[in-house]
């Protein structure tokens, strides 16, 4: 897969293309990262770090912070390595109280999913799935109409509109903003 293809698949591809890109990144980066982490950690920790790294790569692509100056695989590898070093450092701080002076530089707790989950729960499963079908999997309205048993494409559009409006409403009600979701 080419660099542009990976980015394009992740941001604008169908669900299938996205999974293919993830699979490609996994095969390209995970084995090396795992060997490196296994020197001081476990396989489960390597998996957690890789998942977190991919999630952050996604943020960089979606919010256009990634400038394509380096290869995506190199970038992902660097993110994962930094995450692991931060995790190592956090552990040391926890186990060695002498280092607590540096607490201002401790990595922030990973809070995004803790915020996102209740939001989506409040939005409702049906709305979440419909928004995912349109925005994440890039399905057409005709397909959404069939999959969600809606009367017409216009009904599908209206439903999508209502769901999105509801989601924006929930976010605003809770006073959340961009920074709340980005770690």
């Amino acid at each position, binding site marked *: 897969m080419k660099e542009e293809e990976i980015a394009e698949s*992740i941001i*604008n591809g*169908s*669900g*299938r*293309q*996205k*999974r*293919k890109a*993830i*699979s490609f990144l*996994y*095969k390209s980066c*995970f084995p090396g990262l795992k060997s490196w982490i296994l020197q001081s950690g476990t396989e489960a920790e390597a*998996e957690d770090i*890789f*998942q977190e790294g*991919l*999630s952050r790569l*996604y*943020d960089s692509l*979606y*919010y256009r912070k990634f400038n394509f100056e380096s290869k995506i695989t190199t970038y992902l590898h660097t993110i994962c390595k930094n995450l692991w070093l931060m995790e190592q450092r956090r552990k040391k701080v926890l186990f060695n109280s002498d280092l607590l002076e540096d607490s201002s530089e401790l990595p922030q707790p990973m809070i*995004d*999913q803790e915020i*996102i989950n209740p*939001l*989506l729960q409040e939005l409702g499963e049906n709305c*979440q799935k419909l*928004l*995912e079908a349109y*925005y*994440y*999997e*890039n*399905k*057409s309205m005709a*397909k959404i109409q*069939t*999959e969600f048993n809606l009367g017409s494409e216009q009904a599908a*559009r209206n439903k999508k*509109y209502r769901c*999105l*409006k509801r*989601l*924006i409403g929930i*976010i*605003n009600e809770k006073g*959340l*903003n*961009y920074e709340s*979701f980005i770690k």
Partner: protein
Amino acid sequence: MKEDNQIWNEFDDYLKGRLSTEEKDAFHQKLAINSELRKSFDDYKQSIGIIHKNAFKRDIASVMAVEKRRSNQRNKYLYIGIAASLLLLITAVLTITFMNDETSDVAALYQPYPNILQKRDITSDPLAIALNDYSKKAYQSALAKLNDISPSNDTIRFYSGLCHFSLGQLDQSISSLEKLSPQSIFYEQSIWYLGLAWYAKDDEELALQYLQTIKSGQFNFREASDLVNTLRQK
């Protein structure tokens, strides 16, 4: 509602890269001078971002689980091979028998999709000429002609995928069918053929991943359900 919808459609076009350079510049300018619009865009982008991120995380977990299972399976076979050559021989014999069963299953399930352009003028339309060969089961020749048509599109990709499938070139078939966009009229059909191709390649997990998404009323739903049940019982 209408107004919001119009604005959101423009946001969609921007985020999905459907605006021309001029339109994009105009959009940036509007954002620069209109703080209300900018706030609305931030809210919109943030909400879509949550939907994306949540689904992406779920996909990461699911892909990693599949890849891990595969890798474990590969390692298991490697150890078995090293440990006992006799066992390997038996396994090979069993595998060949199993593959033969599977191949005959696939042959029974695989029906090339009909040529939907049969009524077109085959003297001047290159696609109709290629698909005429396809109808006559001259898949190699059909493939060569399909490859010559430029630019490619989902119809060409779909029928190329089926030609490869018919020729037993499963990897090329998968690669072609996977390129279909969800908007394609052949998308539903491609899911069935992709499931079948992975099944023929003996990758039951990937076969299931595709076949399970075929819903009632969609192409070959009954066949897909039967195959899913068979695979789950294995």
